[in-house]
């Protein structure tokens, strides 16, 4: 059987008056049914753009998908007719966005926003759609769902609105759920509720999940596999435990070191990554991370590394995988102290 999702060499550019933003460059990965993939990166790393490009939700212009294929159950989503794409977005791939307030229609009752989708996508009649809406709202933990379907988005709290968004995204039983920083705007106790909810729904419904975030902690709790993005490229992909125990890209190593762990004592400084992410219009030649990298040598400044094997189902786009894997975070700290 074909994998659920194969992204091949996806490249997205934004043509602005200042120049061409190289938002996503040559991203390739594969997902099986029921996978939970964490997509990690900082702002501007291309994590959201690459996912929205798969759904053809990039504003064109200025954006343009300049290459690659997105095979969803064998069909290339970048090639299918617009009508079919509507079905894919409504029915087969669900999306949750960061800010539920701006992604829900403020002048439509929340029940109607969900049941309308059921009528359009699944051909249900109005009454059946309403029944199903109540069920799906109960499933995501909205108390007294039957009474609340007539309420408007502003009558819900942030966490509850995000539950409504999730209800909408899963109402048509998608095979893939894309969650774009769904908990970033929420408090930690509410974030924990939402993460647990998605985890439970994933187990019950068997759908695959792409969870986009900058928060490695959330990823550690939820994902089975992680893709790390930097400056529009995929720099490391690994099973969750491998990524944290044996990172093979200097950027991942630096990110992990920059978080205080439970054993970081007050005497220790945090390891950190020098400098700031690059200007996406004028990327450095070679590896995009070299200006900030403690492992760089001449080759890094000249040639872009492809994804090399770094272990079992583990790949890293780095010329110095062995050195990175031999290092632990403290040695990076020393290296930077000496530099």
């Amino acid at each position: 059987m074909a994998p659920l999702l194969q992204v091949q060499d996806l490249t997205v550019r934004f043509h602005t008056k200042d120049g061409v933003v190289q938002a996503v460059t040559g991203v390739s990965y594969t997902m099986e049914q029921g996978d939970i993939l964490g997509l990690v990166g900082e702002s501007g790393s291309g994590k959201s753009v690459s996912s929205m490009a798969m759904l053809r939700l990039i504003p064109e212009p200025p954006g343009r998908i300049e290459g690659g294929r997105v095979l969803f159950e064998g069909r290339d989503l970048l090639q299918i007719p617009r009508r079919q794409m509507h079905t894919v977005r409504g029915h087969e791939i669900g999306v949750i966005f960061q800010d539920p307030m701006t992604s829900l229609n403020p002048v439509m009752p929340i029940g109607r926003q969900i049941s309308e989708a059921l009528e359009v996508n699944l051909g249900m009649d109005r009454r059946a759609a309403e029944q199903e809406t109540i069920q799906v709202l109960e499933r995501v933990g909205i108390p007294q769902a039957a009474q609340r379907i007539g309420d408007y988005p502003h009558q819900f709290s942030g966490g509850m609105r995000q539950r409504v968004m999730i209800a909408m995204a899963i109402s048509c039983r998608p095979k893939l759920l894309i969650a774009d920083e769904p908990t970033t705007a929420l408090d930690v106790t509410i974030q924990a509720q939402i993460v647990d909810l998605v985890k439970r729904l994933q187990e019950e419904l068997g759908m695959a999940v792409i969870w986009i975030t900058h928060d490695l902690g959330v990823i550690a709790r939820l994902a089975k596999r992680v893709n790390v993005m930097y400056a529009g490229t995929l720099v490391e992909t690994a099973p969750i435990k491998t990524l944290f125990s044996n990172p093979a890209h200097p950027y991942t190593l630096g990110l992990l070191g920059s978080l205080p762990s439970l054993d970081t004592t007050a005497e220790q400084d945090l390891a950190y990554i020098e400098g700031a992410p690059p200007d996406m219009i004028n990327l450095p030649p070679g590896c995009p991370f070299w200006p900030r990298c403690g492992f760089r040598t001449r080759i890094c400044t000249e040639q872009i590394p492809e994804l090399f094997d770094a272990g079992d189902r583990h790949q890293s786009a780095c010329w110095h995988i062995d050195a990175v894997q031999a290092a632990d975070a403290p040695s990076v700290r020393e290296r930077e102290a000496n530099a």
Partner: protein
Amino acid sequence: MNVNPTPHTNGAILQVEHLKKYFPVRRGLFQQVTGYVKAVDDLTFDLYEGETLGLVGESGCGKTTTGRAILQLEAPTAGSVKLRGRELVGLDQRALQPLRTEMQIIFQNPYSSLNPRMTIGRILTEPMLVHGIVATRKEAEERALELLERVGLSPYFVNRFPAEFSGGQRQRVGIARALSLNPYLIICDEPISSLDVSIQAQIVNLLRKLQRDLSLTYLFISHDLSMVRYISTRTAVMYLGKIVELGESTTVVSHPLHPYTQALWSAAPIADPAIEETRERIILKGDVPSPVNPPVGCNFNTRCPKVMKICHEVDPEFRELEPGHWAACHLY
């Protein structure tokens, strides 16, 4: 009630007692006051020389308002704030002005807190000239260059504008501005939460270094308990306008007494799948109640997994349950 979580009285450079800040809620044509948002509701704590006190809580718990009420950027509704023994509450702007050189603030958002039309040099020299801590403009300019170097920025940046800088660099400018008047107390209001992860550690390390070099005292306001645990000597946990727990940071995290602290810590994601797999998680039900009508009794009783009958009736007293470890809970 005379509660003061003070193991010793000397060394406290800031004493906050029964601090309250209520915002009126106005309704209707004549803007009648129909209620109050109790943003800060009876806080008492001390800040010791050279320490970092972490103030942690979720959005709307009143932690930012606390910082602003201490600096008198918001006039407190009631209570007392003493800076090295001098009462700040009730002072007018003129009387406060000389004290501003002693206490400063670093804001959360480095994009909105720097004037976009001023050069970095002007942002740094203006406070020095206004407060007269330098004799001449030339001296102010020299000091601005020193400050830039101290926060890890090139002196060449002095003639540039904020728009030319990244978030992390702007936050460094914000830190340099706070330092320009030589304060000994700095309120850090979520100084890293708008920055990318790889930049956060740079700023945290810088703040720690400045504290060592300049003997600064910090009130570090944050929603991130794991960062607060790391950076703070002591940690205060706020919920709905009140401090529910206060103690040594390592103790508050490893041995939390208040059910809210326990839940907050268990909800804080830790970047280690091995720990996450085995960690017990307390998922709180529901949302934070409105601070306009906080629950009667303990204000955490609507979400507390260990709620008892008394919690609906009596507001628990904030007491020292172990040496230096305070909490407001009926369980103890």
